[in-house]
């Protein structure tokens, strides 16, 4: 057990943060902010253009090598940007899978040629990526995945089915996880490919999710040709390297979420205060305690993120600590959106535009938040990880 809280001061890249803030305030199109009354959900083309501009302004690919379109800075600058991005109600990246998952995996296991071909196209938004891991028979238990690749001349043929593949319908590439042998091999024989989504034999169906969106997909692979050059890392080796990358990603992806959480709380309180019919709710002791709880949780999640960045910047291993942050954020954010739904549900029918915007945002937010304790390793899986890898509890059998 770590004995000390070790009160090392945090290093915040203040100048970089100020630069990011100025860019967001000067370059974000009208209608992008979910906490403003002129909000109109931006379409894919608008999001693509905006994210490409963010990259040109030095605000995406911050930690990536300059050789591959990145800016060669550190996680500290990435954190400084994330604080500003989160503080504004800006749209989620349409290529977060590419930027926060596939890109780092390619950097870790890809060949020089693969890096040069794939990485710049993620950052300039010409290629959106999806993650082909989960399958109908392999959700939390990924080692049971069945999608199989077999040798065919100097390449491979893939057959199988992927599911919960967010954004597959709009993706140009898929980080495909498959196996060379059979399910009994468990973790052995795992292999990764960069699959072009327009390849013959790839079929995508959308699945409507709880919030009414059609972003979730299933992906069918029917004898799909894969070139040897599309394999990322050697079989087994590529996957085990990717696991290490994913561990870091769990601790650092969507680094802005604590600040977005705070943006939501501000929006909620402002909207409730904007209506005479609901203003009094903010005087209520129970509501205040729930707001205090949200503030406490926000600061705790900030603490996890900031200290993870410090640890990584100092060259420390992050281990399974991402599980603590993920669990705390997902559950406390679910608590918050329950509060938000309770409050916006009390807004009157004749509420003004500020309140109406908040109602729409938090009704959607409430429904969408159910996903947070399921995706990226469900709560039950995170608890197992904490028990096994953080507490190091013996199995006791």
């Amino acid at each position: 057990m770590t004995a000390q809280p070790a009160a090392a001061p945090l290093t915040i890249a203040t100048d970089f943060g100020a630069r990011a803030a100025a860019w967001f305030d000067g370059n974000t199109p009208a209608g992008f902010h979910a906490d403003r009354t002129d909000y109109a959900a931006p379409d894919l083309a608008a999001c693509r253009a905006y994210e490409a501009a963010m990259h040109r302004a030095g605000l995406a690919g911050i930690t990536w090598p300059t050789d591959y379109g990145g800016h060669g800075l550190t996680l500290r600058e990435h954190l400084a940007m994330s604080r500003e991005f989160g503080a504004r109600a800006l749209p989620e990246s349409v290529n977060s899978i590419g930027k926060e998952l596939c890109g780092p995996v390619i950097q870790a296991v890809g060949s020089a040629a693969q890096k040069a071909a794939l990485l710049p196209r993620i950052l300039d938004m010409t290629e959106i990526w999806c993650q082909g891991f989960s399958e109908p028979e392999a959700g939390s238990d990924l080692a049971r995945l069945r999608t199989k690749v077999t040798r065919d001349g100097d390449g491979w043929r893939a057959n199988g089915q992927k599911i919960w593949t967010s954004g597959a319908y709009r993706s140009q590439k898929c980080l495909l996880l498959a196996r060379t042998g059979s399910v009994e091999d468990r973790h052995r024989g795992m292999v990764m490919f960069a699959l072009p989504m327009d390849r013959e034999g790839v079929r995508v169906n959308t699945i409507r999710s709880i919030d009414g969106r059609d972003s979730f997909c299933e992906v069918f692979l029917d004898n799909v040709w894969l070139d040897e050059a599309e394999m990322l890392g050697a079989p087994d080796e590529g996957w085990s390297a990717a696991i290490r990358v994913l561990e870091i990603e769990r601790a650092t992806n969507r680094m802005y979420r604590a600040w977005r959480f705070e943006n939501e709380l501000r929006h909620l309180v402002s909207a409730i205060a904007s209506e005479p019919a609901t203003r009094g709710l903010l005087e209520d002791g129970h509501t205040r305690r729930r707001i205090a709880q949200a503030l406490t949780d926000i600061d705790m999640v900030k603490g996890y993120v900031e200290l993870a960045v410090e640890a990584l910047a100092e060259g420390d291993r992050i281990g399974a600590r991402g599980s603590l942050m993920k669990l705390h954020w997902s559950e406390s954010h679910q608590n918050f959106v329950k509060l938000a739904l309770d409050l916006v549900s009390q807004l009157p029918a004749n509420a003004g535009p500020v309140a109406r915007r908040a109602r729409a945002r938090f009704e959607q937010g409430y429904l969408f938040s159910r996903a947070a304790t399921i995706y990226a390793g469900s709560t039950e899986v995170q608890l197992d990880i904490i028990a096994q890898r953080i507490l190091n509890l013996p199995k006791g059998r």
Partner: protein
Amino acid sequence: MDSDDLKPEDFFDAALAAMQALPTEPRARAAHLAEAGLTGVLAPEAVGGMALPLAFAVPVAQAAGRALLPVPLSETMLLARALAPVAPDLAAALCTGEAAATLQGAGGAALSDTCTHAVLETGAVVTLADAEVTPLGALDLELPLARISGGTVVARLDPAAMAALTRDARALACAEILGAAETCMQTVVDHTTTRVQFGRPLIALQAVRHALARQKLALEGLRHALRRSLGDTGEARSGTTAFLAATQGGVQVAEGAIQLHGGMGFTWDVPLHRYLRRIRRIEAQQGTPALASRLAADFIAELA
């Protein structure tokens, strides 16, 4: 001592060792802690202190939480620093252990026979010998709460000094809770790993593993919140949110440890109740519900 070579965490082991060798005679305790170099960690050198930053008092307070120290050492460390400009003789006496002081919060002061002085909410520094002391309950067996009034005023702290004192006292209270919660966590992990039921150690049961994982989440959450509040986050509220995280997380860990000890956890045969009592006493002392309410009110006022 040269603070360049010194790290805050270096203080933990020495502090804990000194606390575990505490004399039984209450009046001798402050001198013992002073001899170990603990009372004057923060005080300026002019009054015999080491003039170190608050971060160095954090592991000392954490050790106090582990050891269930029956002396308000956090308060004494802070007051030796705060009193140096207005009552240097008393500050010096706090450093040597000739005196020991407590600080009254919204919910009272933690008081032991070791104490000679108290600082009231008004900033009045009073002698305890002639003060009126009303016990406020017996949650904390070693360091119970009392309401102090009257007493000879020997000095006064101004509102700015009191505000700084209150803020720093809350940070050290977090550290004490962290120390107490760490002990509970270690105790319950040891117990569930060795206690056999149904032919297996308790740790083999997923319900138990998940309960422990949640306690660990609470413990690490409070550690991170404390660490963040000590750094330069640029947010005034981080001390308050860290304290709320600490009381909430500390209680969760201590109550959870008692639960997983089964019937034993409910008795005085295991010391877990003492840690729970201490955490709850600290919570009461700081007027925690009002603190939470004020945190929300300030946030609302900023937006309205």
